[in-house]
Each structure stands twice: as C-alpha cells, then as structure tokens.
C-alpha cells in the first residue's frame, strides 16, 4: 500500500478582508473629515436678536451673515453693492465647483496649475501607526484592516471601534 498522504494544507487566507477599494474610500473619507472646520453641523439655534432679521433678508428670504453684520455695525447706512459683489456673496460655491468652472483641467500640460502642483507619491513604502496607542502598527485587524501593535490594543480595538469607521 502506498504511504498515507495528508491532504494538502490550505493556504491561510483572510476571506473576510475588506478589499483595497473599501480601504481607499475609507482613507479618503477620513481625510475629508480632517478638513472640516467643525465636528458638528451648524447649530440651528441662532442667538441673535430677531429684530434685525427683517431688514436684512434677501429677496428669497435668506439672511446673509455679512448683511447681518453690516446692520450691527452701521445701523442701517448701507450703500448698494455692485452686481458682481452681490452675486459672489449670495451664491456660495464650493472649491470643487470653482475648480471645474475655472477650466484649469483643460489647460495644456506645459502650464502648471493647482492640479499639477501636488507632490508625487512617496518613494518609500508607507508604514502605519497603531490606531489605539500610536506605536508602530505591525498587524492589521482581520475584519476592518485597521492597524494595531499588540494583543491589548487589538482587544481595545475590537471592543470600541472595529468596523465602525467605514
């Protein structure tokens, strides 16, 4: 009889690992959060006196903060702003819209712009820090791919924020 063979050992893979896209999206969302000015959204409760509101409403009923301030400063003496200034103040565009409108993406490659001026990717491979304590993150969580350094930090991570930061 031929010698008994063991079944071929399976390679250990982490079948539940999140794929690279999910991780990239999570990193991007984290970076966008880091650009926020305030953690909470704008509070709806305003504590300015309402008696100023009526005089400073625009045609659509919105109250501009610059108008409100001018009312406080001058007490009503306000000259008419020009059309350009008025529309810049009324219609607030975010940076992505402004970049599209400026057309810098369509310029020939010889002209340096905001989009081309960003520094290149790092040459050396990146290291990560433990998300719990800040030491080197040598290991990654199996479920959510966040880094930790040792068993204690892993248990803290599992209890507090595994998979919550998606």
């Amino acid at each position, binding site marked *: 009889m031929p010698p008994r063979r063991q079944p071929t050992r399976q390679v250990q893979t982490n079948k539940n690992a999140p794929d690279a896209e999910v991780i990239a999206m999570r990193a991007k969302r984290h970076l966008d959060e880091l*650009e926020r000015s*305030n953690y909470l959204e704008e509070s709806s409760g305003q504590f300015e006196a309402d008696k100023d509101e009526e005089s400073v409403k625009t045609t659509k009923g919105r109250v501009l903060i610059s108008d409100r301030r001018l009312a406080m400063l001058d007490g009503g003496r306000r000259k008419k702003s020009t059309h350009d200034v008025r529309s810049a103040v009324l219609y607030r565009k975010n940076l992505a819209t402004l970049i599209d409108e400026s057309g810098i993406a369509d310029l020939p490659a010889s002209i*340096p712009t905001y989009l081309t001026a960003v520094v290149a990717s790092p040459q050396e491979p990146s290291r990560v820090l433990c998300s719990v304590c800040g030491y080197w993150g040598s290991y990654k969580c199996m479920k959510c791919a966040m880094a930790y350094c040792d068993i204690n930090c892993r248990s803290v991570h599992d209890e507090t924020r595994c998979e919550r930061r998606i």
Partner: protein
Amino acid sequence: MKQPVVVLENGASKIKVGVVNASTSVASQDLQRVFPNAIIKSKGDKRTFYGADFEECKDCSGLNYRLPFEKGYLTDWDAQKAIWDGVLRHEFLGIDPHEASVLVTEPYFNLPNIQDTYDQFMFEEYEFAAYYRSTPAAFLPHGQLFKVRGLPSPECILVVDAGFSFTHVVPLINGVIEWSAVKRIDVGGKLLTNHLKELVSYRQWNMMDETHVMNDVKESCCYVSQDFATDLETCRRNTRVNAIVREYILPDFSLNKRGRVRKPGEMLLDSHQILYMGNERFSIPEVLFHPSYLGLQQAGLAAAVAQSIALLPEELQDMFWANIGLVGGSVKFPGFAQRLMSELRPLAPSDQEVVIYESKDAVLEAYRSAVAFACSVRFRDCVVTREEYLESGPAACRVRFADWKGASDIGKGKGRARVDESDDESSQVTQTRTVKTRTRVVAGVKRR
C-alpha cells in the same frame, strides 16, 4: 501721489493687517493687527465674533468656526465680506479706502475666477484707489529672512511655506516664482489640529468640538522629533511617566481661562482636568514629514523639496540648496529646522552646501516683507489703479499681476494681446540673462 498703503495678508487661519504711512514710509507698528480669519460663535458667551472681535471672547470652549477659506482657497465670500467689513472700515484702520492703496495676498495657484472676485471686492465694494495682489512668497525677497550681514541678497531662494491649509515649496529666481517647480503637500495646521482632536478624543477626553483648546495644546506641547523610532520606544515603555510625556491642564471656566502645560513639581488640584500628551507630542508634526501615516499618498516635506529642486535648471540647483527659507505657522514646532536639515542632507549631492534660514517670527515674516515692499519705490509702479480697473475691467489685473498663468490669458474675457509693460517688475521675460549669485555669475539662463 503718496497715499497710505493697507497691507492685508489674508491668510486662511489669521489675517495680518496694517497700514504703511506714506509720509514716513515706515509701517506704524501699533497699527499692525493679527486676528483669526473666521466667524466664531461662542455658546458660553452667546455671541458671534467676527475676526478682530475675538479678543473679547472670554469662554473659549465649544466654539463654532465658520472659515471663509476652504482647502486653502477663498470660497465663502459672504463670511469674508462680513470679516472684511469690520477691518477695512474707516474706524478700524484709520484710513479712507478712497485715498489708500491696498496690498492683498492670495494663495498659490489661486483660481482665475476667485482672483476676479478679489479684484471686484477691492475696487467695487471697498473702492480703493490702487491695488496689488500677489502670493506671500513673492514678497519674501524684500524682507529680512535671507539677509546675511555683508552679503548681497540671494538671487535664487527656495521658500517652504507651511501654512494652515497646505504646505508649499516655492522656488524664486530673481524675485519671480518659478511656477513649474512649485510643489504642494496637502498637510497644514488645520489637518494637524483635527488629527490631534481625533486621537485625544479616542484615547482620553472628547475634544472634537474644542478646536481652539486643541490648537493651543498643539502649539504648546508638540515638537518635531529628531529620531522618531527612539521617541516612540521611550513612550512605549511607560505611557504615563517618561521623559517625553507632558501633562496639559485643561482650561475650565472658573479658575484658569487658558490651559497650560504643567510644570515639573507643580501641585495638581482635584479640580484640574489633565490631558496626557505622550507620543502625540511628536507624532502629530511627523505627518508633515510622512503624510502616509494618515493614508495620504503624498511624499513628505524633504522629498517635496528635492522634487522641486530637481525641476529647476541644473546650473542653478546648488544655489537653491543653499538658500532654503522657512515661513508659515507650522514651521514653529521646536526642532523643525533641524529635522528638515537632517532629512535634506542625504538628498542633496554630498559636496553641496545646504543652508536653512529660519525666521524670528514665522507667522509675520511674509507680512513684514510685504510691508517692506509696500514702502519701496517699486510698489507704486506695480499697482493697478481704480481708473485702470474701471476702464479695462478685471483683465487689467489679470495681465498686470503675473502669476502661474504665464503669458496665456485664461478665464472669461476675449483673447487679449499682452499689454507691453517694459517697467513692470513682475513680468516674465523670455530672454537669456545672467543670474548673479553670492559667489559667482551664471550666464545664459533661459527663462520661460
């Protein structure tokens, strides 16, 4: 026609503003003001502070910020107008805009549509008599940063501007920015403060709303480590008691209005709330040198400097290595210049001299240089007057203030031949010319 000049450095974090008195041609120091460029709502004081009013704020907890700048560019004109109305009025600065010139700073690679709005505001809303707009680095050759006793000012300088929204590496040849070699890292003071808020909120106290307090903590406790790995080990062994840990006493609303770092041997009362700053002290500023720690796929500051210099003409590269200047709030971390030098040294050729110039006050350096420029004779030739603007519209400014757009006319407006400005200092001239340096003359440098 000598008029007072309002120098308005419009930063994303702070506005630095002052008036240069034309008759004495010296900036009056007492008129110089620095205050946050934000509309701040305080729940404790139940008040909204616009810019300079913020000094009156007593309760600095739970402040809600509204910043006109988004990712480094001015997008919220409503908020900016509200802040500027208080600054540029007669009573605040003591001048009448109709008879004054204004000098405004803009971010690097400012978008053409935003630039038009700057021009519209200055001429149409505030009605200044003359106006000049440029980036902060362009003023630095007029300032004190690179001045060494006994030597002429360098022709080729490399400016590292580490600000609130991002960090730029800006090379200048003969006072003109070489735009094709400008590099940007999207890490700034705002990102560092928010990152610190997140770490502390996870590990100790929930400080996600306390931007002002955490900014204070960052500025008082954080430093740039010269050896990141060793410092990490020091903090690893005993997290609460080691050579690096500092205890920060948080402000409360009765005893101490401002937080402070606990001095060694200082007694702690029960009412004091303590924030332990261990490896956060140096791992926050480390992001400037390794943005990959945050998942941002951009190289660090030293690599950015090397990339920028590699894009410059070969014969001039060694002059740039020898004239690196640091400005901006984020360079004020202790140990910054030393760490940058130790990271740059292996990246430069081994026989190359690498010199880094630091400023005594990195936040005000660009402002002071702008003041020096405003006092100089050349300023009067560079401005756009109100008559020119009313005649030719925003194209007058677009053509006169040469910046990254170079010779092409981008943005709305008909294609316009370039106005011939033979005496305009900042025009880009395509001709060979010699560049004098401190040690030698390099001939035949072709400029774009």
